[in-house]
């Protein structure tokens, strides 16, 4: 692998603004700067997906690293039939589901801090205001309950609700990533929301 200058590793350097496919072709020629830029583009979304699935920062960190390493090793087989984004997402989803199946019920949450902007989020302000029945509820308690409820869902239902309701992906995108049709995505989403609503009924108006 060609070692990129440290400035490129920090900021993506000359690779900023180049389209994914060109970066993939360069990375296939072992240009680490190009692959570094691809990681920077998608790391936050991939991390968020894996983190919301596991509710554990350390597990998410390991899985994200393994995902990008696996993608790099398999990069020669990437033909561009789908976007790099969908392709790497699919690797992350499969890795995470396999990890969760092995982990089974040994859930150990290690939650990230809620950023200070949350207190100003209009949706959340309404939930924890004095007018709600659970006015004693604070954001941290709500965070724990919400993550606990998500962990009760099956891996596939949790994945659909994570990709759609938290990350805002469309049904079509989720279908491509999870290799299933849009109808399946919709039905899983409906069932997952019903389940979550039942688990969290005390915290909803």
């Amino acid at each position, binding site marked *: *692998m060609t*070692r*990129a200058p440290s400035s490129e*590793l*920090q900021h993506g350097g000359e690779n900023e603004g180049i389209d994914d496919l060109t970066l993939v072709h360069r990375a296939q020629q072992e240009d*680490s700067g190009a*692959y*570094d830029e691809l*990681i*920077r583009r998608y*790391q*936050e979304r991939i*991390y968020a997906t894996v*983190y*919301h699935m596991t509710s554990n*920062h350390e597990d*998410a*960190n390991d899985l*994200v*690293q*393994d995902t*990008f*390493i*696996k993608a*790099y*090793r*398999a990069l020669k*087989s990437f033909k561009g039939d789908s976007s790099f984004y969908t392709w790497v997402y699919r690797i992350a989803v499969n890795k995470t589901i396999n990890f969760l199946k092995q982990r089974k019920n040994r859930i150990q949450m290690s*939650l*990230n*801090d*809620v*950023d200070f*902007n*949350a207190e100003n*989020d209009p*949706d*959340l302000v*309404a*939930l924890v205001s004095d007018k709600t*029945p659970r006015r004693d509820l604070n*954001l941290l308690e*709500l*965070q724990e309950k*919400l993550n606990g409820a998500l962990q009760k869902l099956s891996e596939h239902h949790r994945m659909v*609700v994570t990709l759609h*309701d*938290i990350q805002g992906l469309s049904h079509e995108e989720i279908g491509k990533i999870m290799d299933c049709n849009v109808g399946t995505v919709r039905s899983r989403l409906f069932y997952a*929301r*019903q389940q*979550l*609503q*039942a688990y*969290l*009924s*005390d*915290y*909803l*108006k």
Partner: protein
Amino acid sequence: MKTDPENFEELRKLMALKRHELPPPGYFNRLPGNIIARIERGDGQLGFWERISASFTVRPAFAYAFALAACGALTASVYSVKTQSAEVAYQRNPGKGWHTDSSDQNIAQTFDASHGPHVANWLGNTNPSAASQALPSLFAVPYQTVPVSYQNQ
């Protein structure tokens, strides 16, 4: 508390909280460097069998071709072994040819008479007393010479 199963608006608002859960500051600045360092160390490199199975996943046609070649090699080896054993048998007793004559029938009868009860074992008899009897080797059949006369009696 009552919640309408068809109306997920409140749930959607609650899920907004998840978007505010963020990793430690600076995490995303360090992550690409950590990944590139692990790649350079050789992490995640595939072994021989993993590379083979990965290429099967990527190119199913390669898997079919490999399976076909393996079947062909197996068939060829079985055919070769059969041909060789037949040649050996012919070389041991070249005068008899390949047809069954009376001497072969006699040998077969002698063999059946002496080893008849063991046939049950070959057919899958589960009787432990029968199964414990050692089977004779198929290659230890004694050759018998039966005098043949072509003169009319």
